[in-house]
Every structure is written in structure tokens, then in C-alpha cells.
């Protein structure tokens, strides 16, 4: 099997798993998860094989694994779809394969496979626990198989997106993931909040997707192709796009600029950037593996992956060190803003998953901002490392919640929210594996110097920003500080100190299916950074493999940044400071204490706690007016008043005209003369003629033969 | 001397040539002489067949007796070999009874049809490499076709007798004969397939290895189904004495009954001849090619062996019930015959493409076919045994003692 064939086959096992589970194995939980995990394993094996093949090829960027099929005849040439694995897709495949497999395995434990069915469990609600010998134990998810079907479809979407060689199939994968995120966020659909969150996520991302589709359409109209290779490896096309004014000069964008901005809006929706970030925190209503899958490893990464992929287009017309293109400006601005803004909100959240959700938004902002200032490789590097440690953190938080839920089931006090960090504390001893892996993930997120992957990738972004764009650097540095702070806040509140509730005191370590993925992912959360250590630091002793490899994706290789010790020192200081402060502030929080930050921050804390009132703002700006428009303006005024009025008028006129026609024309002329008259004629004729129809077959045959003989005679005697 | 040797090698054609020369020498037109000769030949053949029955009846009675630990006919002639002649005389002198209400023409036609349907088969049977009635290129189909005439005779007999038992016998005959014709034709197609011809003589020529080795299942099925076509035990439902007296022939007497009798015996031997011809290499044997008269000997030897088996079956096996008879045909023989035919065709094609034929590599060819047959049979047995269910026999009433006097 050639590598190209293998790449074609990569997305298929999850799709097959989806079909099999939905169609056949829905009843068997064990079979369903076996199929799903086996499919993930197959795809993982394939991804690793492709990855190993890919790193063995010299100058993969020039000679990627590429295979196309003619798909639809469009105009005078067929539209081609295909698969492409270049360095960027290869590293993406690497982390997608690992995280997807780990999340699949984790899901088995998370949904309590092997536990009895719950006493009062209801499809569409989280399991409430079952009573066995008087003890309450966790119960298995009632819609277990359905979960694996959805998540397998999700994996199919992600693999499709990664291996596709053109924007259209990428968009297909993108939309499949959109659908799956809707299904999975609303997995517990009997919970009103989950329902609302699912709809919110779907609608919000839809806004971005519409713009993205417009961008895709415009790109196709302008170039006649959607294939990455044909656009990016063609200087003329890019140049042409950069120089043509869009829509006849409207808005002053170039075509490339407008397309770039439109595509970037798609990313804003998918990767939850400001101002479309509102859906992501709410999406934590879904099961935790989904949060890890959607909001760390795959879907939000897909948005960043897309803009990294489209970077040559976004940066068309940009010179190294020159003024930024409109799209890049937008990205730099929005990315930096989001990074800081989400980090501040994360400071004041108490829900363990919500903190991580805002942290994700913030980190994605990092990547976008990095891309905005041209730090292509740094963005890709951070994408990969972030995927690993954020998946780790989410899965870890799921493990924590699971452990605390155990305590809740034990005490039976369901008022205690197992996700609130202020209800935890001291879990270090109860859940050692979770603690250590969470610690590794958290340190990677805050950029703990030298050992963690997050340090190297974040440092690379900061170094790039330091060299190219000082304002962005400052914003990102500030958010890095905040990141370290809230991460340590989270770790301290959750794991350190003494248990603040009885439930936390009775927490238990989770089964191996959940801890194994944590361990595996924490290996990458540490080790993956070492492939991208700046050469300047080690004096070239360790080559910066990642930069060399990924930079080869682009036609012109981006130069390695001059090593500068200043930003590195800066980030070390920031990280350590943030971590230290976090520990110091939160080390002694007792049960029932308010957040220590509440007093000093005052009003601001409320702002942060309520996420700057963004939801309320959107409610006022968008939702209330649309409700008003639909309920009052459209329904009452236009529909009932205007349109119904016209219709009633027309109806009255037609009614009277109809009456005249009926009484003076229809009844006398048509009914009596034409209708009844012709019927009478036909009836009497039929009455006479029916005597011919005797029902005796031989008489009919005699008639037929008489006719035949007559015809014969006619032709012979003529 | 040489002429004499030639004559001894092939006396039949020698005599025919002599008569032909005699006739043309008298000034008769050659084609008329040829036609006349054919007519005479046919007559002689029929006569020979009918005479053969005399021996067959004695043979069967003797075998019957020996197997049942009796002596059998032993008074007239040596070992009773002439016993049949007094019987013939007796049957000739019996009164012809025609029942009232019988349909005269079909009633009288039926025994003739029953015998002539059998004799018609002899027209295409090659008794030796040079002695045969007609080398028809659709010989096998012809054999099937004239088989229908025999069953027609039985139906006519049953209906025309105006007797209920006879009619029931006729119904049974039709359901049995028409049903068993299906697997019989399918089994007959196997040698046709192997020899790639429907001519009976060509099939004999093609058997450098006897086809029973290549297609044992087909041979077995042909033997069984042709037994049913003949209507002898265990397939003698159409005359079942204990149920419907004598079935279709209940109203016949005298020579008319004798003709049915002769037809049955002749039919039984004819299918032995057919089995020998189609599956046992016919007249083939050492020097049979050079000495055609030897071929006749070989053929009758093989046919006698088969006939022995046929008689053994008749003696040893009890009669089928009608549902068993139909089930055996439609649920056992027909599917098996279909499978055998299709698999044989497939294997034959594969072997032919691999250039393994009966001529080029006889051993491999035969072994492959044998193995395939064994495989089919084993598979079939396995299927049949695994699907066998213990059927509950419904108890209609209490068992009644047969020989107990009624209570006062």
C-alpha cells in the first residue's frame, strides 16, 4: 500500500465505526466502544505510519504526499479533491492521532463502563448512580453507544479536515465537526442548559461559517481552484490576488485581504475568538471527553489549523518586517485582545472546566496573534503543544470531577457541585496520578521553564513578538502572567491544602482507562517541547527540528529568528511569578471563604466573574431585538396587519366575483347544458353499446378473427 | 478363412451385409433395400429384447428365491430355466376381460405403449462398436423423451380401466414418474457434460475411464431415479398390492397383463443397460474394438451386474410411503442433482482450462472429480444429518390388538 492510499484510508475507520454503531451495535455497549476504539486505533496506526513516512522524506514541503481524484465536472475542468500530507499536516496528524485515541480510551472510563445501570437514569441526563448493596456507586451512561457513534463521526471530520488538500473538503470536515459538536454538547439533551448550550454553539459558529463559506466561494471565483498546492505554490496567483482590489475597490481591501478576512471570521467562530467566543465556555455542558475533544484537541485547533494552512494567502503581499496585511492586522489585534481578555475572565471563574475553557480561548488567541505578526512556525508549534497539554488538562479535570462525584455519591449530598473548585482541595493524596499529570499539564500551560513543552512554544511566540511587534508582545506577556496565575490558582484550590468538603475528602482515584491517557498525554506535554528548542540557546547542539520541518511547508522558508535571551528571561520570570503568586494567594483558602481576589479587585471582580457581561450584552444587542422584530414587528404589524389585510380584501372581491359566476354562468350553462347534457348522451350511448360486451371471450375472439380475416381479404383483393 | 474371421468378429453386420447384397442382387433399389433392412433389424432387436425377458424372469425368480432361502423354479429344464415357457403358455390362454365402462381404445393401447416405450430406448443403445440401431446425436434426450411414452401408457391404463384403484395407481404413477424425471435428467446431464455430446455411442467412446469413477454420485442418482421410473420396489407405489390391489393394471388380464409384466422386466434390464452404457463404459473392454461381438458380451456382463443390484434393491427394501417418496425426490435428489451438475460443470471447466482432461491426465482428472463428489456427498450428509429433527408421530387412536376376539 502506498502512503497516498494509506492517507486516503485514514479518515475511514471512524466513519465505519459510526455507521456500524448507529446501524447495528447500538444495543451492545462493549461492542460499541470496542468498535470505536478499534477504529481510533486503526486511524492512529495509520497516522503514525504516515508521520514516520513523512519525517523520512527530505524537503517534504516540495514533495508532499499528494493524491487527487476527479470528483465533479465543473465548467470545463473537473473539480479535484484529494489528500495532502505536508509537514504541517504531518505534525497535525501526529497530535490528532494521539489525542483522539487517548480521548476514546478515556471515554470508556468516563462513562463508567462496567458499572451497573442507574436506578433512575434517563437517556439525555447524566447518570445519577446506582445502588448496589446499599452503597451508591456511579452508573453507566444510558446512551453509551450513541456517544461513541458521535465521537467517531467527530474523529472522521477531524481526519478529513487534516488530510484534505483543498478548502472544500476541509470545509466538509469542518462542518461535520460543527454538527458533532452540536450533538455532543447537547448530548445530555434533557438538561435545559445543555440544550441551550448546544444551540448557542451551533448558532455562533454558524455565523463564522457563513463568512468562511463566502470566503471560499470568493476564492474559487477568483482563482478557479481551491487546492492548497495550486494556490500557495503559485507566485502569480498570490500576487494577482494581492494586487486585485476586492469587489471593485469596495472597502479598500485587496482580493487576498478580503478572502483572508472572511476566512479568518470562520476561524473566529470555530476557535472561539472574541467576539464570537461566547459559545465555548457554555459548551462545557457536554461530557468532559467532548470538552477535551472539541475544545482542546481538535475542533478549536481546526480553526487555527485552517488559518495556518491559509497563511500564504493571508500574508499575500506581506514582506518580512513590512507593514501587515489587513487580515494579519485583524488577526494580531483580535488574537492579542482575546488572549488577554479571556485570561482575565479565567481569573474569576470557580468552575474547574470553565477556567480551562477560558484558558483555551486565551491560548488560541496566542496562536492567532502569533500568526498575525507572521510567526508561522511558532503558531504551529504552540498549536501542537497546546493540543497535548490542554487535552491533558481537560481529561485531568474530568478525572477530578469524576473523583469528586464519587464523593458526592458517597455522602448523597447532591447540592455540592462537583465542578466547583472551592468545593475541592487536598485531592493530591486522594488522586495522585491525576494530581501529577494535572500538575504537568498546568505547568506546561503556564510555561514552567525548560522542562515543559508549553514553555518552548510560548517562548517562541513571545520571542517573535518581541522582535516584530512590541505592543503585541506586551499584551501577550501580560496574559502569560495571568495564565500562570490562574493555573496555579486552579491547582492550589483543587489539589493542595486540606479538603474543604466531605465530598472532596471521599474522592477516589479513577480507573485505569482514565488515568492511562493522562499519563500518555503528560509524556507529550513535557517531551514534545524538546523538538523545538531554539538553536541559539544550546548553541546549535540540539537542532531545532520542528522549525526546520514545519517551515518547509511554505514555498519560501521563513528564517530562524535571531536568538535573543531577553524575551526568554522575561517569560521565565513571568511564569515563575505567576505561579508563585497563584500559590501564595490561594494556599490558605478555607471552606466557605470567598475568593481572596474579590476584595482587592472589587467591582472588577464582578465584571470578570460575569465575563464582562458579554452574554447579557449579546442578549440586549442581538437576541432581544430579534425577538422584538419577530414577535411585534413581523407578526403583529406586517403579518397580521398588512399582509392579512391585503389577503382579506382580495378574498372578499374574489368571493363576490365567484358568486356571480356560479349563479349566472356555471349552474345554467356548464352544469346543466354541457355537463348533464353530455353525460346523458354518453349514458344512453353506453346503454346501447354495452350489449356488445358479453363477457364471453370466444365472442370477442371471433370478432377479432373476423376483423383479421377482413383485413387479410382487404389487402389481398385490393 | 480371413472372411470367416471377419464374420466371427462382427456376425450381425456380416449377416446384414450379406442380406443387403442378396437383395440388391435381386434388383431391389439400394435405399429401399436399406430401409427394409432397418425394418428387419428393428424387428430382430425387439424380438431379442422380448426373448431376453424370458431369461430375466427366470433369473429374478431364482435370485428372489435364493435370497429368501428358497430354491425357486427347479422343475422345468436345468435349474428350472425353462419354467417361464409354461407360464407363457398359461398366460396366453387366459381370458381377456374388458371391464364395463372401459374406454376401449386407450384401454387396449396402454399395454402396447408400456412395452414400446421401453423398446424404443433400444434404438439408440449401442450394443457394440458397430452394432447399434441409430447413432442419434441427441440420444440421451431421446431416451428421456421415450420414457414419457411409457408413463403415458400407465396413465392410460389407469384411467381407461374405469376402476378406482387403477385411477389411484395412475395418479401415483404420474406424480412419481414426472417428479423423478427431474433428477434423472439432471443426473443424465453429467455424463453428457463429461463427454461433451448427447450421442450415446459418442459417450461410450469418450469413456476411456468409466464415468462411474468420475461421477459416482450421478451414477448412483441415475440408478435410483430410474428405479422410480420403472416403478419397482421400493418405488412400486403405483401397483402396491397391499394398498391398491395392483394399481393401474388391476383390470388387465391375459396377455395384456403379460405385456405390462414384460414391459416392467424389460425396463428394469434396460436401465441396467443404460447405466452400464453411460457410466460403466458400455461395450468397452479388451479387444472390443477389433472384435465387436466381444463388446456385446462385455455390455451384457456389466448390465447383468447392475441388474443384480437392481433386483437386490427390489428384494431388500420395503416400499416407500407416498410422502416419503415425494420428499426423497424433491428434498434430497433434486437439490443434490442440481449441486452435482453445477459443481461438475464448474470443475470440468476449471480442469479443462488447466488442460487436465480424461485424455491428457486421466489419473489427476479422475481423482479431482472423485474428491469433489466425495466432498459434495459428505457435505450433503452433514447438512441432512444436522437438520434432522425428531418428528413426533401423531397418535391417532389407541393401539388396537389385531387378533383378540371381541368381548361378549
Amino acid at each position, binding site marked *: 500500500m502506498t502512503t497516498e492510499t494509506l492517507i486516503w484510508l485514514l479518515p475511514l475507520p471512524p466513519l465505519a465505526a459510526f455507521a456500524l454503531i448507529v446501524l447495528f451495535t447500538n444495543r451492545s455497549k462493549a461492542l460499541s466502544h470496542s468498535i470505536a476504539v478499534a477504529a481510533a486505533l486503526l486511524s492512529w496506526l495509520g497516522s503514525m505510519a504516515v508521520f514516520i513516512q513523512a519525517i523520512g522524506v527530505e524537503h517534504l514541503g516540495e514533495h508532499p504526499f499528494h493524491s487527487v481524484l476527479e470528483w465533479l465536472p465543473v465548467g470545463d475542468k473537473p473539480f479535484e479533491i484529494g489528500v495532502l500530507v505536508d509537514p504541517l499536516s504531518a505534525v497535525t496528524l501526529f497530535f490528532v492521532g494521539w489525542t483522539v485515541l487517548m480521548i476514546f480510551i478515556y471515554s470508556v472510563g468516563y462513562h463508567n463502563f462496567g458499572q451497573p445501570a442507574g436506578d433512575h437514569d434517563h437517556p439525555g441526563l447524566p447518570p445519577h448512580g446506582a445502588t448496589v448493596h446499599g452503597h451508591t456507586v456511579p452508573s453507566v451512561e444510558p446512551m453509551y453507544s450513541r456517544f461513541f457513534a458521535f465521537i467517531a463521526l467527530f474523529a472522521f471530520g477531524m481526519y478529513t479536515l487534516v488530510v484534505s488538500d483543498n478548502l472544500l473538503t476541509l470545509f466538509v470536515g469542518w462542518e461535520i465537526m460543527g454538527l458533532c459538536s452540536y450533538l455532543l454538547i447537547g448530548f445530555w439533551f434533557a438538561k435545559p442548559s445543555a440544550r441551550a448550550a448546544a444551540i448557542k454553539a451551533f448558532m455562533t459558529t454558524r455565523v463564522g461559517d457563513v463568512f468562511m463559506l463566502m470566503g471560499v466561494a470568493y476564492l474559487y471565483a477568483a482563482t478557479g481552484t481551491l487546492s492548497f498546492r495550486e494556490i500557495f505554490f503559485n507566485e502569480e496567483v498570490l500576487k494577482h490576488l494581492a494586487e486585485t482590489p476586492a469587489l471593485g475597490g469596495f472597502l479598500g481591501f485587496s482580493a487576498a485581504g478580503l478572502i483572508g478576512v472572511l476566512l479568518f471570521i470562520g476561524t473566529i467562530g470555530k476557535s472561539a475568538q472574541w467576539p464570537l467566543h461566547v459559545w465555548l465556555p457554555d459548551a462545557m455542558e457536554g461530557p468532559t471527553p467532548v470538552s477535551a475533544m472539541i475544545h482542546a484537541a481538535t475542533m478549536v485547533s481546526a480553526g487555527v489549523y485552517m488559518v495556518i494552512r491559509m497563511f500564504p494567502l493571508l500574508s499575500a503581499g506581506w514582506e518580512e518586517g513590512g507593514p501587515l496585511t489587513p487580515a494579519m492586522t485583524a488577526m494580531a489585534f483580535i488574537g492579542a485582545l482575546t488572549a488577554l481578555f479571556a485570561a482575565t475572565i479565567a481569573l474569576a471563574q470557580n468552575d474547574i472546566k470553565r477556567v480551562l475553557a477560558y484558558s483555551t480561548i486565551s491560548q488560541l488567541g496566542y496562536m492567532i496573534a502569533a500568526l498575525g505578526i507572521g510567526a508561522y512556525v511558532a503558531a504551529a508549534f504552540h498549536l501542537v503543544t497546546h493540543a497535548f497539554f490542554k487535552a491533558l488538562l481537560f481529561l485531568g479535570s474530568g478525572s477530578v470531577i469524576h473523583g469528586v462525584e464519587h464523593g458526592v455519591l458517597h455522602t448523597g449530598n447532591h447540592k455540592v457541585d462537583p465542578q466547583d473548585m472551592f468545593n475541592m482541595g487536598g485531592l493530591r493524596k486522594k488522586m495522585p496520578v491525576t494530581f501529577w499529570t494535572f500538575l504537568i499539564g498546568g505547568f506546561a500551560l503556564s510555561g514552567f521553564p525548560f522542562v515543559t513543552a508549553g514553555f518552548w512554544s510560548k517562548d517562541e511566540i513571545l520571542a517573535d513578538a518581541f522582535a516584530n511587534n512590541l505592543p503585541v508582545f506586551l499584551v501577550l506577556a501580560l496574559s502569560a502572567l495571568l495564565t500562570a496565575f490562574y493555573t496555579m490558582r486552579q491547582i492550589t484550590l483543587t489539589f493542595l491544602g486540606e479538603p474543604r468538603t466531605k465530598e472532596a475528602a471521599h474522592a477516589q482515584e479513577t480507573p485505569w482507562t482514565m488515568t492511562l491517557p493522562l499519563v500518555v498525554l503528560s509524556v507529550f506535554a513535557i517531551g514534545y517541547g524538546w523538538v523545538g528548542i531554539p538553536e541559539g540557546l544550546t548553541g546549535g547542539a540540539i537542532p531545532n527540528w520542528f522549525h526546520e520541518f514545519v517551515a518547509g511547508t511554505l514555498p519560501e522558508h521563513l528564517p530562524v529568528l535571531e536568538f535573543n535571551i531577553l524575551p526568554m528571561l522575561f517569560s521565565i520570570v513571568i511564569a515563575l511569578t505567576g505561579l508563585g503568586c497563584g500559590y501564595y494567594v490561594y494556599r490558605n483558602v478555607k471552606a466557605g471563604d470567598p475568593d481572596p481576589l474579590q476584595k482587592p479587585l472589587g467591582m472588577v471582580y464582578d465584571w470578570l466573574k460575569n465575563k464582562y457581561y458579554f452574554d447579557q450584552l449579546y442578549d440586549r444587542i442581538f437576541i432581544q431585538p430579534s425577538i422584538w422584530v419577530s414577535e411585534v414587528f413581523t407578526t403583529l404589524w406586517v403579518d397580521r396587519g398588512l399582509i392579512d389585510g391585503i389577503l382579506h380584501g382580495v378574498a372578499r372581491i374574489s368571493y363576490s366575483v365567484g358568486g356571480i359566476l356560479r349563479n349566472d354562468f356555471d349552474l345554467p350553462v356548464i352544469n346543466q347544458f354541457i355537463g348533464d347534457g353530455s353525460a346523458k348522451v354518453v349514458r344512453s350511448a353506453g346503454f346501447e353499446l*354495452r*350489449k356488445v*360486451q*358479453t*363477457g*364471453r*371471450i*370466444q365472442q370477442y*375472439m*371471433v370478432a377479432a*378473427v373476423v376483423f383479421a380475416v377482413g383485413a387479410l381479404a382487404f389487402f389481398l383483393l385490393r | 478363412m480371413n472372411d470367416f474371421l471377419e464374420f466371427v468378429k462382427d456376425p450381425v453386420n456380416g449377416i446384414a451385409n450379406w442380406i443387403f447384397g442378396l437383395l440388391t442382387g435381386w434388383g431391389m433399389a439400394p435405399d429401399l433395400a436399406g430401409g427394409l433392412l432397418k425394418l428387419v433389424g428393428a424387428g430382430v432387436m425387439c424380438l431379442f429384447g422380448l426373448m431376453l425377458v424370458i431369461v430375466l424372469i427366470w433369473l429374478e425368480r431364482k435370485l428372489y428365491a435364493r435370497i429368501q432361502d428358497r430354491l425357486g423354479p427347479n422343475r422345468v429344464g436345468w435349474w428350472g430355466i425353462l419354467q417361464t415357457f409354461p407360464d407363457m403358455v398359461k398366460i396366453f390362454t387366459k381370458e381377456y376381460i374388458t371391464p364395463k365402462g372401459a374406454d376401449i381404445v386407450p384401454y387396449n393401447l396402454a399395454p402396447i405403449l408400456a412395452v414400446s416405450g421401453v423398446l424404443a430406448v433400444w434404438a439408440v443403445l449401442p450394443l457394440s462398436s458397430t452394432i447399434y440401431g441409430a447413432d442419434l446425436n441427441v440420444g440421451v434426450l431421446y431416451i428421456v423423451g421415450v420414457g414419457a411414452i411409457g408413463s403415458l401408457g400407465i396413465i392410460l391404463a389407469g384411467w381407461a380401466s374405469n376402476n378406482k384403484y387403477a385411477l389411484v395407481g395412475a395418479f401415483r404413477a404420474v406424480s412419481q414418474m414426472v417428479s423423478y424425471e427431474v433428477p434423472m435428467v439432471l443426473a443424465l446431464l453429467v455424463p453428457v457434460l463429461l463427454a461433451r455430446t448427447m450421442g450415446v455411442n459418442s459417450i461410450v467412446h469418450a469413456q476411456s475411464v468409466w464415468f462411474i469413477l468420475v461421477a459416482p454420485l450421478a451414477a448412483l442418482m441415475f440408478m435410483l431415479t430410474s428405479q422410480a421410473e420403472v416403478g419397482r420396489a421400493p418405488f412400486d407405489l403405483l401397483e402396491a398390492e397391499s394398498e391398491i390391489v395392483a394399481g393401474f393394471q388391476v383390470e388387465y388380464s391375459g396377455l395384456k397383463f403379460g405385456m405390462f409384466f414384460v414391459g416392467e422386466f424389460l425396463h428394469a434390464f434396460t436401465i441396467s443397460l443404460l447405466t452400464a452404457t453411460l457410466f460403466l463404459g458400455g461395450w468397452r473392454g479388451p479387444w472390443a474394438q477389433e472384435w465387436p461381438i466381444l463388446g456385446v458380451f462385455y455390455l451384457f456382463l456389466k448390465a447383468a451386474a447392475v441388474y443384480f443390484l437392481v433386483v437386490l434393491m427390489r428384494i431388500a427394501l420395503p416400499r416407500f410411503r407416498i410422502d416419503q417418496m415425494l420428499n426423497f425426490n424433491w428434498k434430497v435428489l433434486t437439490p443434490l442433482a442440481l449441486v452435482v451438475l453445477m459443481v461438475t460443470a464448474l470443475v470440468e471447466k476449471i480442469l479443462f482450462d488447466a488442460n487436465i482432461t480424461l485424455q491428457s491426465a486421466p489419473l489427476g482428472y479422475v481423482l479431482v472429480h472423485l474428491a469433489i463428489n466425495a466432498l459434495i456427498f459428505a457435505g450433503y450428509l452433514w447438512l441432512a444429518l444436522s437438520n434432522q429433527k425428531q418428528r413426533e408421530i401423531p397418535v391417532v387412536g389407541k393401539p388396537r390388538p389385531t387378533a383378540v376376539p371381541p368381548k361378549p
Partner: protein
Amino acid sequence: MIPLSWYLIFAAALFSIGLFGVLARKNAVAILLGVELMLNAVNVNLVAFWRYRAPNMIAGQAFAIMIFAVAAAEVAVGLSLFISIYRRRKTVVANEIDLMKW
């Protein structure tokens, strides 16, 4: 030798006899017998034309074989229909089966 005309006249006669049977017989089974005669007449024509006009094209015989199949199917279905009709209406006389009249 035998000219083609003999066969054609024979077939026409057989066909006409069959037609008479179809048109004149009362019993439905007898009508079917007539149909068989007509089909045979057609077959004789087909084979005769094949032999006399185009012996190298096998079409005539092939058509004849198709007609065999059709005839067999027709008889099977026809007779079963008659049996079924007899069960319901106690008659197979064609003129008495006239439910389809006005």
C-alpha cells in the same frame, strides 16, 4: 424432395384447425388444446423457414425453443386458473364465465 409449400400449407391447416378449436369449443381446457395446436403450427412454420431459407442462422430453432417455454408456462398457468375458477364457479365453460360483461 419436399418443397417448402407443403410445410406452409400444413402449418396453415393446423393453425386453422386450432383456431376453430379455440373459437368453437365450450370447455376452457379444450380451448387451451386449440391454443397448443396453433402454437405448434407456428413452430412448424418457424422451423421450416429456418431450414429452407436460412439454415445457417439458428434463429428459427431458437425461437421455436422460446415457444416451447412459453407454451409450457401458458399451460401451467392456464390449467391452474381453470382449476381455481372451477372451485369458485363450478364451471369452466367459457360462455358461462361472463362476469366481465356489462
